[in-house]
């Protein structure tokens, strides 16, 4: 009987730990945007955000046209098809907070005192 009790407690502890860490959800590793044949996947980890948008040279820096979707861990993602070339981008959190991407292939000054991320789509990626 004692052994069943120990086993039950261990199982419960494992379930609680997994639920707390969010490991039950399929883990998606954070990465810089990388072009694939299906498009470019943009990712940002902001569990506290109410909304995250992608703004860049490809959408005339619109803070509303490309909204990311949130997963259970607070990672926001969006797949976008972009033409070959260099594209500049930033994330817009909660509609007004413009942030430089924590992960990007390269960065460039935006001329206003901040930095834009760069994502490159090569002809071979398409």
């Amino acid at each position: 009987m004692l052994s069943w009790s120990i086993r039950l407690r261990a199982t419960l502890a494992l379930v609680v730990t997994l639920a707390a860490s969010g490991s039950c959800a399929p883990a998606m590793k954070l990465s810089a945007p990388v072009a694939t044949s299906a498009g470019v996947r943009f990712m940002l980890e902001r569990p506290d955000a109410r909304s995250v948008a992608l703004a860049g040279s490809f959408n005339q820096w619109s803070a509303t046209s490309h909204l990311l979707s949130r997963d259970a861990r607070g990672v926001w993602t969006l797949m976008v098809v972009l033409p070959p070339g260099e594209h500049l981008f930033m994330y817009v959190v909660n509609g007004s907070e413009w942030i430089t991407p924590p992960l990007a292939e390269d960065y460039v000054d935006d001329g206003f005192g901040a930095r834009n991320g760069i994502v490159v789509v090569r002809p071979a990626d398409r």
Partner: protein
Amino acid sequence: MMGLGQEMESWLSGQRIARRLVMRRRGFALVRWLPGASTLLMLLFGVPAPVAAQSVPLAERDALVKLHTDRGGRAEDVDALVRLVNEATAKGLPATPLTNKIREGLAKGYDPRRVVEPAIRQMMARLETADGLVRELDPAAGGVTRAASVTLLAEAIGSGVTTAEVRELRRAASTSSKPPLSGEGLASAAKGLSSIKEAQLPVADGTAVVAEAVRQGFQSYEILDLGREVKRREADYRSGRASLRALRDAIARGDRPDQLFRDSRIPPERPASARPEPAVERPTRPETPTRPEPVRPDRPATGRNR
């Protein structure tokens, strides 16, 4: 003939502006004389009317104004920026990078007068320098290609490449067997060099690397990638673990871009599932052989049964 075409275009835009003025002031009489005045000026003096210097399309100007006024800003501030773009285009500079930068600045909520305007003026200066270089080094360049070359070269200049370095790059990349580097090729090469400069590596060695890549026929995007890869490996090059001379030698031997940095195109954070897999034919897997049940030795008693 071309001049006449431009004048006609300017006149047409003059008409559109006149129509808007009229709509705003509700002075219907203007409709009759203002476009006609533009035409009259053209016919009499052979020059477009003052408003005809307008080069930012009205729809674009309106979109910029809306972007700013929606946040409580004033249309006049945006018009001041549009005037700057018009000044630039009157000098033959491309308008697109400037209007894009205005849109970016306004979208990000920067003050048009204190922040956006200085950035636009700085960009104009770089475009002007780049334009002068393209005129000097590739006088035959024209149209869209020329505008793209000027824009890219201006970006390189913005990242720290000097006009002297651009000239030296063109000289170093020239071969007796090939025609001189075009404005487009030169702009890509300069942009590639700018990445190497950003990594604070010796410019002479960087120039040699990029010039060799040009001579070996690297595509524009491959030259940009080359510069970026060097910049990404900045620490290796600065510590001596990698060398620009060795890189140049590898390019001269005929190594292609995908052979130069085999392990770095895919960032380390990238999930393995996203890596492109080469299409390979896999042999059909043989059926799993049936294994005999393992014979386990008797175990000593554990506390489980205690």
